């Protein structure tokens, strides 16, 4: 995946293509052509939904993979963005709903999501390692109970309904194909941003802090600030996914951000693999496909047992997720290759 920069650059255009890498180009072509072959159901319920949850898991993977901070509160930050859309935009629950236009609501939603993420990040980076999971799980649970209890701001249990994607320049983003492309653009932007950030000075510093915070502090880096900025970026991605999620569902309620949903994001990230930003999307496709079709196999009631067992199997046998399995397979094939040459 990681295409190195060529040693002697030819034309700038070729250089760019080489930097993107053939794998990405093929993937992009396939994803762009996907609407040509798929039905509306596969386009939104599988395609769009996977991309949204892939972004949520990506925001977790950014923190966990590069920062060593496993957060269970990413769905809560998505919820912050979602509720912002509901409260400041239009809803038909007859509560609040200031009716602001989408180009005003969306940046506001992203800003709130990123800020709350940075805030929780700032609180949780005061402790180390495994504490982050506990603190963020407590935050996610508290957020769920709070929005369920509070009717004045969040309309309690029913939440908000009638949230719709906007119509921009005559393109109705509620339709399957535009919605899919909107999700694809958002996911590609997030993916590319994470990939770029990982190789930037900031990303390298963050990874060094993950590996040895004490040494980095001794050299003179501001460990807390780097971590909090990582939380801010993760919050941006989660917020973007949150906005898309409310447009996808058309509603937001406490059920959208409950503990099961928070854990779902973690499951997706872990199943896909935390080592590379493509992992969350692989995991999302797997889980969404399982969610959609496992019902035919085990019935709707016992789905959680199935996904739990699958998750346990991945954690036990392939800590790096499906990407790790792929890596193991490639290594074995390479060994076979060597053996056959002898």
């Amino acid at each position: 995946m990681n295409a190195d920069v060529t040693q002697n650059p030819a034309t700038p255009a070729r250089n760019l293509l080489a930097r993107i890498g053939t794998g990405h180009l093929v993937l992009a072509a396939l994803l762009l052509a996907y609407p040509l072959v798929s039905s509306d159901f596969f386009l939104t319920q599988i395609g769009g939904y996977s991309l949204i949850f892939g972004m949520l898991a990506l925001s977790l993977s950014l923190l966990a993979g590069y920062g060593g901070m496993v957060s269970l509160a990413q769905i809560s930050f998505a919820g912050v963005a979602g509720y912002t859309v509901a409260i400041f935009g239009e809803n038909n629950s007859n509560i609040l709903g200031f009716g602001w236009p989408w180009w005003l609501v969306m940046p506001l939603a992203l800003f709130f999501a990123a800020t709350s993420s940075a805030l929780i990040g700032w609180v949780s980076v005061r402790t180390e390692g495994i504490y982050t999971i506990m603190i963020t799980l407590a935050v996610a649970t508290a957020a769920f109970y709070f929005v369920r209890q509070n009717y004045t701001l969040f309309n309690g249990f029913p939440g908000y309904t009638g949230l719709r994607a906007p119509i921009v320049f005559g393109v109705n983003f509620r339709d399957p194909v535009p919605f899919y492309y909107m999700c694809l653009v958002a996911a590609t932007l997030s993916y590319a941003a994470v990939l770029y950030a990982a190789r930037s000075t900031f990303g390298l510093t963050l990874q060094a802090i993950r590996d040895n915070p004490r040494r980095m502090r001794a050299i003179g880096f501001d460990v807390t600030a780097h971590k909090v900025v990582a939380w801010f970026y993760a919050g941006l991605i989660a917020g973007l996914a949150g906005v898309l999620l409310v447009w996808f569902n058309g509603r937001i309620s406490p059920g959208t951000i409950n503990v099961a949903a928070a854990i779902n994001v973690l499951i997706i990230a872990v199943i896909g693999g935390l080592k590379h930003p493509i992992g969350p999307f692989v995991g999302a496709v797997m889980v969404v496909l399982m969610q959609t079709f496992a019902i035919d196999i085990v019935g709707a009631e016992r789905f959680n047992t199935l996904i739990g067992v699958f998750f346990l199997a991945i954690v036990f046998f392939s800590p790096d997720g499906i990407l790790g399995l792929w890596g193991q397979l490639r290594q074995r094939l390479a060994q076979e290759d060597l053996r056959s040459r002898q």
Partner: protein
Amino acid sequence: MSIADAPKTPPGSAPGSPGTGITRRQVWGLFWLVLAALFIWLVFADWPDWVKNILLSKKAFLSACLNGLTLAGLYFLVASGFTLVFGLMRNVNLAHGSLYLLGAYIGYEIADRTGYWLLGVLGAFLILSVVGLLMQVVVFRRLEGDDLRQTLVTIGISIIAADLMLAVWTGGTYQILIPDWLAGAIKLPIVTAVRSNGSIVLLSYPFFRLVVLALAIVIGIGLWLMLNKTRVGMMIRAGVDDREMLSASGTNVHLIFAVVFAIGAGLAGLAGVIGGSALSVAPGEDVRYLLASLVVVIVGGMGSITGAAIGALIIGLAEQIGLVYFPTYGVVLTFVIMVVTLAIRPQGIMGKSQ
């Protein structure tokens, strides 16, 4: 805390300590003394009108306090196991809430079939101890030293456990019946109001909840004695401080781990039966008590029984008092307590900094 220090504390009147005035410790001592005095006054005095304006009625306030104390007892029972397991093994057992719920269901079944409530409590404790032991030996020992994977595994277990419990006991709400000798309400020697004819109204409160509180205190003292006065307790405390060193000095740490995990899981099961009797049993309770354990342990400090008691007290009281005085923002209070603790003292009130 220290009553002996109190007379010296007024600023400027401490001739023994030149220059700096009073020490930090003395300020805190005075603070707690004033708080305790205020609380005692609130409990026993006949409330003037201006207090009633702020705190509604005396009955509501005292009931909230007592409910908070009872809930704190329950939280302590759940969280003490959680904090011991975490402190010793660095294992964040996110399936702890599931252990609570499983204990409640098992206690319900035993009590329902045999007719003996105590048998239910005992059975839940024993069965959950075995479950905890199995979890430690079969699952966690294989993943030793890998905190993240251990935690992920507990998440997987909690998902499967919740789903299977839903399959067996369905989504209904159960109530574990308490025996007659524990049921009913008793009058406490606290006057809540004086009628116009001069007769006094005493505060009545469910007897069982007081028993819960007493039980939590007894178990808390028992745990403290075990940790501080026995050989096993000494090993556990040594393990919390430095696992490698304990192992190197010839102790079988895996045995200690198994014992602690069994006690922790058993206590969660016991708390499940008691919580299911005082309140009710339903799906989703696992998450509630997991959250409670998390917050209690974050506030109180990891690996400390005293910390768990203090944390449980703060969270239990905050939750119940919050429920009475600002119902829709009650959860925020819990959250604020957690954030403030993390901001001021990241390792928790009784936690040791690493």
